C-alpha cells in the first residue's frame, strides 16, 4: 500500500516536471536551429538531428536595420518600468495596508473591509476595459508612448496586489509591537518607521516579488499604450509572431525574457521554506 502510494507520488511529480520543462527545452533546442532545420519537421537533439547555429541568438543584439531584432533596448525599458512601478506600488500599498490593518475608518457605510475590497477589486477589471479610456487619457496628458504613462497604468495594476499581501501580513504582526513603541514615547510615525517597518521586510519582499511578476508579464497595456518610443519586451517579442515566424530568434528571446524571473522564483521559494510566506499569503 505504502509502496503504491510512493510510486504514484513520484510518478505524478515526474510527469508534471516534464510537462513544466518541456516548452523550455523545446525552445532551447529550437533556438539553435535555422530555417532549414525548422521547416524539415520536429527535431530535438543538436548535431544528431540538425546542425546547430547561433543565428537565433545573434540577431537578438543586431539592430533592425541589419535584419536583427534588438531586444536590448526593450529589455532595459521593461526592467525600468517594472521596477519603478513595483517600488511605488509597494511604498503606497504598504502605507495604506498599515492604515487598514491598524486603524478603523468610517465614512457613511464604508468600513475598513470595503476599502480593502475596493483596492483588491481593481484586479477584476480586464485590461481591455481600461485600455481604451487609458489610451484617451494618456493621449490627453501627452503621456502616450512614454514611460511615465506606462508606470502610472502599472501602478493601478500592481498596487492592489501589494495592498492584498500587506494587509494580511500586518494583521499577523502583533499589535503589541506598535503599542510598546508608543508607550516608550515614539509618535505614531516613529513607531511605524522605526519599529513596524523593519519587522515587515519579509512581507514587503514577497509583495515586491509578486509586483515584479505581474508587472514583468503584462502584455496588453504595453501593447495598446506604446508604439515605437518605449517598447517593452513582450511587445517586441510578440511582434515576431507574424506570417513567417522566425522560430529560432523567438525561442532565444523567450528564454532570455524568462531568465531574470527565475531569480524571483528562488527568492519566493526561500521565503516559502522559511515560513515567512505563510503569514503573507492567506
Amino acid at each position, binding site marked *: 500500500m505504502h509502496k503504491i502510494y510512493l510510486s504514484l507520488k513520484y510518478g505524478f511529480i515526474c510527469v508534471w*516536471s516534464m510537462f513544466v520543462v518541456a516548452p523550455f527545452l523545446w525552445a532551447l533546442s529550437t533556438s539553435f536551429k535555422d530555417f532549414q532545420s525548422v521547416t524539415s*519537421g520536429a527535431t530535438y537533439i543538436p548535431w544528431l538531428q540538425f546542425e546547430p547555429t547561433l543565428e537565433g541568438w545573434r540577431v537578438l543584439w543586431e539592430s533592425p536595420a541589419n535584419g536583427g531584432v534588438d531586444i536590448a533596448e526593450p529589455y532595459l525599458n521593461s526592467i525600468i518600468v517594472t521596477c519603478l512601478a513595483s517600488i511605488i506600488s509597494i511604498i503606497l500599498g504598504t502605507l495604506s495596508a498599515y492604515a487598514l490593518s491598524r486603524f478603523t475608518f468610517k465614512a457613511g457605510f464604508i468600513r475598513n473591509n470595503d476599502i480593502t475590497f475596493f483596492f483588491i477589486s481593481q484586479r477584476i477589471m480586464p485590461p*481591455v476595459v481600461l485600455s481604451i479610456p487609458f489610451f484617451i487619457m494618456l493621449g490627453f496628458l501627452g503621456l502616450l508612448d512614454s514611460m511615465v504613462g506606462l508606470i502610472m497604468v502599472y501602478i493601478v495594476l500592481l498596487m492592489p496586489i501589494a495592498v492584498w499581501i500587506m494587509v494580511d501580513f500586518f494583521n499577523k504582526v502583533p499589535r503589541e509591537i506598535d503599542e510598546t513603541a508608543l508607550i516608550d514615547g515614539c509618535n505614531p510615525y516613529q513607531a511605524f518607521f522605526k519599529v513596524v517597518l523593519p519587522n515587515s521586510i519579509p512581507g514587503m519582499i514577497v509583495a515586491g516579488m509578486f509586483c515584479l511578476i505581474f508587472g*514583468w508579464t503584462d502584455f496588453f497595456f504595453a501593447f495598446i499604450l506604446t508604439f515605437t518610443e518605449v517598447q517593452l519586451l513582450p511587445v517586441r517579442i510578440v511582434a515576431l509572431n507574424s506570417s513567417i515566424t522566425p522560430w529560432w530568434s523567438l525561442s532565444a528571446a*523567450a528564454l532570455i525574457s*524568462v531568465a531574470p524571473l527565475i531569480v524571483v522564483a528562488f527568492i519566493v521559494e526561500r521565503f*516559502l521554506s522559511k515560513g515567512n510566506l*505563510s503569514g503573507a499569503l492567506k
Partner: protein
Amino acid sequence: MNFRHKHIFLLPGLLVLIGILIFPILFTVRLSLSSWDSFYPGLDFIGLENYIRLFTDDLRFWESFLRLGFLSLTTVFLQYVIGFSLALMVWRDIAFKRFFRVLFLIPMMSTPVIMTVIWKTVFHESLGPVNDFLSLFELTPLWLSNDFLAKITVIIVEVWQWTPFMFLLLLAGLLSLPEEAFLAASIDGAGPIRKFIYVTFPLMAPISIGAIIIRLIEASKIMDTVYVLTSGGPGTSTETSSFYIFIKGLREFQMGYSAALSFTYLVIMIISLTIIAKVLVRVLMKQD
C-alpha cells in the same frame, strides 16, 4: 489605537489609485451612452441604445460569456486539483523538496504571451513536437483549427501557466497549518487518507476558497493566450468576453458599444464572483 493622522497613512495610496482610475471609469460610463465609432468619433448622447442592442441583438457577446465561464471554471478546477496535489506532495518529506518547489513555480514567472508563442510552435500542425509524437500512432490532430481541440489547447496552456500560482498559495497555506492537529490525528491512528479528509482538507478550506477566487478573477481576464494562440478562432470557438470587447473596441473601433459591453461585463463579473464565493464558502466549509 486611533489617532488623527491615520489618514496620512491611508490616503496617499487610495488617492493615487482613485486619481488614476476616476477618469477611465467615468469615461467608460459616459462613452457607453454615445455612438462613438470610426466614422463619427465624438461624445454624442444616444441614451441606452447601446445597452438595448447588447441585450436584444448580440448573441455573440453572450456566447463569449458562456465560453469564458466554461474555460475559466475548467482551468481553475484543474489548477486547483493539480496545484493541491503538487502542494501536498512537496509539503513534507520528499527528496529534492526545494528543487521541485522552485521548478513548479517557474511557469508562473514566464510571460504568458511569450510562452504562448512558444506553445503555438509546440502545437504546430506539421512542424511541432506534439504532432511529431502523435504521428507515431498515425494521428495528426489539427490543434488550432478544430473547434474542440482549440479549446483544449487553450486549457492546456492556461493550466501550464497558472497552476504554479495555485500551488504557491496552497503550499503557503499548508506550511502555516498548526502541527498539533496532525499529531492528534496520528495518535488516534488515522492513515494518510483519513488525515487528509478529516484534518488537512477542512483546515485548508478558507485558504482554498481564497485561492480559487483569486484565480477565478485572474482567469476571467484570459486574453493573452487567446490573442496569440487562436485569435478567438477557429470562427468564434475560443472567443472570450475580453477578446470580444477587444474586437469591438480596438479592431472595429465601435468605442461606444464596446464601453457598454465593458460595463455590462464588469457588473456581471462582480455579481457572479460574489455568488461563487458564497457557494464555495457553503460547500467547502460545511464541516464547521
